[in-house]
């Protein structure tokens, strides 16, 4: 801790020690929070649902332990401090805001507007959207120039490469700030152009939808689809295991985003996915999706 200077402000009170704000305490919000804390950054985690905030601490600490187990986070030093809040005002003073709420345009637009209102101009506002075009989110908010898309994969601390989306209104300063932040977090940024699903979701979500259709047709089991994609085509986990990791509800939301904007029928969420979501089988996070996950059950 540095002593205050004669001006009364500690000299270390710069970008490094200001907290980062995370909006949304779901699967991605918790994983991103762990990534930030594990890189020694203090975090303010905001969610409108207080009960979710009650549960998220245990989840974040599980993520941190898993990340350490895998050697994915620095071992020296102490984790950043986590503060949770239901009030958007808690984001004030944040060095950057990372929005990770439900993959619905209205929910994300509202969260980003709150973030823009609560923080100073020039504070980078990051959306972790997997599919919604950045410029569409920028349209309804103040300071569209500060908005950058950063699509973290799940779990964010294990997958070091991130898809970064520069919207047509994103300012170079915001891009530079986000690149700097990602470098500090040990992430490799691949910058791509704006548009539904960017690069990864446009390819992956459509493929997952097709994989689910194949299972529904009875042509192959989920295991066999994944085994073929892994062992013949070099996919790391197989599309349906990936779907379970993403969360089938999120996947359906993203497919709808893609279908509405592209008209591509391959992106219309298939019946098997919709049935599973209705039944509450959301993948790893609920204990069952295309596979059973004993270890994820409470």
């Amino acid at each position, binding site marked *: 801790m540095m002593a205050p200077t004669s001006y009364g402000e500690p000299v270390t009170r710069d970008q490094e020690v200001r907290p980062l704000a995370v909006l949304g305490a779901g699967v991605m919000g918790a994983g991103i929070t762990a990534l930030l804390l594990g890189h020694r950054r203090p975090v303010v985690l905001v969610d409108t649902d207080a009960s979710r905030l009650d549960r998220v601490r245990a989840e974040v600490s599980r993520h941190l332990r898993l990340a*350490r*187990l895998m*050697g994915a986070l620095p071992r020296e030093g102490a984790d950043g401090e986590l503060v949770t809040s239901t009030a958007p005002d808690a984001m004030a003073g944040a060095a950057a805001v990372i929005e990770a709420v439900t993959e619905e345009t209205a929910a994300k637009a509202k969260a980003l507007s709150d973030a823009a209102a609560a923080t100073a101009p020039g504070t980078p506002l990051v959306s972790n959207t997997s599919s919604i075009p950045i410029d569409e989110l920028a349209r309804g908010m103040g300071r569209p120039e500060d908005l950058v898309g950063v699509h973290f994969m799940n779990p964010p601390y294990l997958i070091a490469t991130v898809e970064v989306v520069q919207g047509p209104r994103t300012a170079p300063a915001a891009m530079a700030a986000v690149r700097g932040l990602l470098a500090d977090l040990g992430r490799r940024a691949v910058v791509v152009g704006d548009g539904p699903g960017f690069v990864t979701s446009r390819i992956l979500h459509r493929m997952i939808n097709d994989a689910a259709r194949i299972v529904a047709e009875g042509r192959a089991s989920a295991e066999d689809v994944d085994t073929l994609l892994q062992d013949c085509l070099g996919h790391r986990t197989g599309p349906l295991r990936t779907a379970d990791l993403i969360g089938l509800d999120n996947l359906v939301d993203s497919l709808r985003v893609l279908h509405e904007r592209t008209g591509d029928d391959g992106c219309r969420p298939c019946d098997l996915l919709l049935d599973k979501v209705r039944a509450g089988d959301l993948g790893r996070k609920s204990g069952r999706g295309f596979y059973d996950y004993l270890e994820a059950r409470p």
Partner: protein
Amino acid sequence: MTTSSDRAESRAAAPPDIEKDLRTFLEVRTKNPIGPDDDLAAAGVSSLFVMELVTYMESTYGIVIAGPDLMMENFRTVRAMVALVERLAATGPGGPG
């Protein structure tokens, strides 16, 4: 206190008991026989499952697995896990001594 009495029990447990206990836990979950030197990664044990093992070992043997001990190397085989439990149960959270 519950934790200290748990620890006392774990200290009393002979190594073969820890080994047998861990092998049973793994065999039930992986539905495969597991030898003390079998490579668990080769037996299909994922990192998420190892996290579950960490939780099980902490609550069963009254130890805390943290810091440099929390690495995959310590969970590669049943024998490695037994060694970890013995070392942590001997020192305890109060430090060496």
